[in-house]
């Protein structure tokens, strides 16, 4: 079996740290876009956060948005060009903190878009501050004693939160920390795009991803952290499939 670079990926070295999950997820998205043959009709949003340079790696039209506003921008594009494939690629701070309102209302309107949501339980680009998904007891540069239930509250579970909304078509939480997880992640991402092509409404795939740098772990330890800690707080699986 030959290993090809997906047509959707530019030939470029990413700026991501060793052991980061963005590279794997980028590749999965690119493979799915290739397989569905939709590269030339895809328009994506780039987030504020580690993946802001998404457009340096992805070979389709991209608009870079203000922090948290990707779903609103995607709404504007999709409503004007309903036959194009529109998706957002967002981190946890973007999607579940500063952009919570946009996320919930875009989902609730049932906008026919796809959301790829990277949850690594930390703010990566700004240097390791608490994310809305940082786990109880987890260290960050703004929770030096670990996230506390009373002061900071428990982490936000996005799939569970959105599952009550009628407008949502599909929600699945996956990981990219084991080969088996990566295969399942690709299946979920593909389904989230197929739903859009079938005009089925809002689909979101939450991807548990590694951030060795800001977790202060080695890449190997970071994989273990996802498998042993994150999956406990953020159980994998399908939360909605209409």
């Amino acid at each position, binding site marked *: 079996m030959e290993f090809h670079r997906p047509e959707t990926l530019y030939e470029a070295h990413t700026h991501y740290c060793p052991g980061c999950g963005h590279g794997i997820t980028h590749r999965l998205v690119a493979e799915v876009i290739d397989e569905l043959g939709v*590269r*030339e*009709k*895809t*328009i994506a949003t*780039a987030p504020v956060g580690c993946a*802001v340079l998404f*457009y340096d790696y*992805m*070979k*389709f*039209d*991209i*608009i*870079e*948005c*203000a922090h948290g*506003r990707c779903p*609103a*921008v*995607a*709404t*504007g*594009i*999709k*409503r*004007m*060009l309903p036959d*194009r494939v529109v998706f957002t690629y967002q981190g946890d701070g973007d999607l579940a903190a500063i952009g919570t*309102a*946009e996320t*919930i*209302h875009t989902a609730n309107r049932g906008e026919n878009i796809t959301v790829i949501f990277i949850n690594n339980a930390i703010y990566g680009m700004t240097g390791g501050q608490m994310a809305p998904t940082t786990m109880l007891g987890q260290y960050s540069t703004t929770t030096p004693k670990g996230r506390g239930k009373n002061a900071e509250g428990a982490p936000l579970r996005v799939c569970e939160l959105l599952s009550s909304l009628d407008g949502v078509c599909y929600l699945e939480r996956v990981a990219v920390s084991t080969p088996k997880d990566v295969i399942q992640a690709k299946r979920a991402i593909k389904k989230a795009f197929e739903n859009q092509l079938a005009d089925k409404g809002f689909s979101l795939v939450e991807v548990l991803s590694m951030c060795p740098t800001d977790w202060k772990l080695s890449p190997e330890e970071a994989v273990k952290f996802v498998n042993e800690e994150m999956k406990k707080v953020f159980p994998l699986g399908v939360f909605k499939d209409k």
Partner: protein
Amino acid sequence: MTERILLKGNELLAEAAVRAGCRFYAGYPITPQNEIPEYMSWRLPQVGGVFIQAESELAAINMLFGASAAGARCMTSSSSPGISLKQEGISYIAAAELPCVIVNIQRGGPGLGNIRASQSDYFQAVKGGGHGDYRLIVLAPSTLQEAYELMMNAFDYADYWRNPAMILGDGILGQMAEPVEMKPYSPILNIPSKDYVLDGCKDRAPRVIKTLILKPELGLVTHNEQLQAKYRKIEQAVRLCEEYEVADADIIVSAYGIPGRIAKGAVKAARGKGIKAGLIRPISLWPFPKKAFLKAARTAKQFLVVEMSQGQFIEDVKLAIECKRPVEFLGKGGGWYPTQEVILEKIEQMLRYSKGAGQ
């Protein structure tokens, strides 16, 4: 014969936008501009357009960012506190050089203020408003006929210059009704083809719309210089104002929007009393019609600025005449508006003082 109809200002602005080809509206309710989203909610679907009541002003302006990137003529509207919320998105749209039209039907501020008419968002509209060095093309109608025409022109300016344009009105303009000749839309500029639109990269290289500029090291400096060069061109091309009885005037009254209209009445009344008064009413607030002021400052002895705010517009008048003449002020924020009588009284008072000083 041109259609002549009676509409509320807010509804008229919405209808003018639709006639100018606006096909996307997103907004959030706020008084006194609610007739705009209400009108758009039924009117846009009639022409195949999209109306969205957004969850917030932030979402609304960012929906415009997307719709504009997708090539649509698009607009949002709000009133003062809501326009503050939109500033983030406006900065991004200006930085990305995308067209859109924003309507501000101003109310009293600061804070939640009140819902009476005001002009206290002048600085915010003409000096930037959001972060970074950018400009909006700001147009201020004083009658509904003018509002109808400027609303259409705003889309042309926005598309031609690839820049957000703003209609700066106030609660009076939005809520009043007067008959308007509904002239058919006719573009005032040759709009270039939209070669930046994100519609899928079929048969072309992928396009990126972004405002983060990290490379080369001074790339953002260059980008800023290019924006400034564009703004200088706009300043040469757009400088709209009404001049009335200026040539032999001893005293120039200046006001924009609704007070501009009231001031014109005061100038007419002053002329009736034999007072040599004139009016300069800026229609484009940015670019500011500086030359008309500078020219008038050569002959007029003094200026009177009237505004429904605490002294914002007056700064641009003083700058425009390079402080060559004394400038008196008549204005209040918070929902006060001038009457013709109050302006006339002020004109007469100014003349008495200047004669007194000459004795």
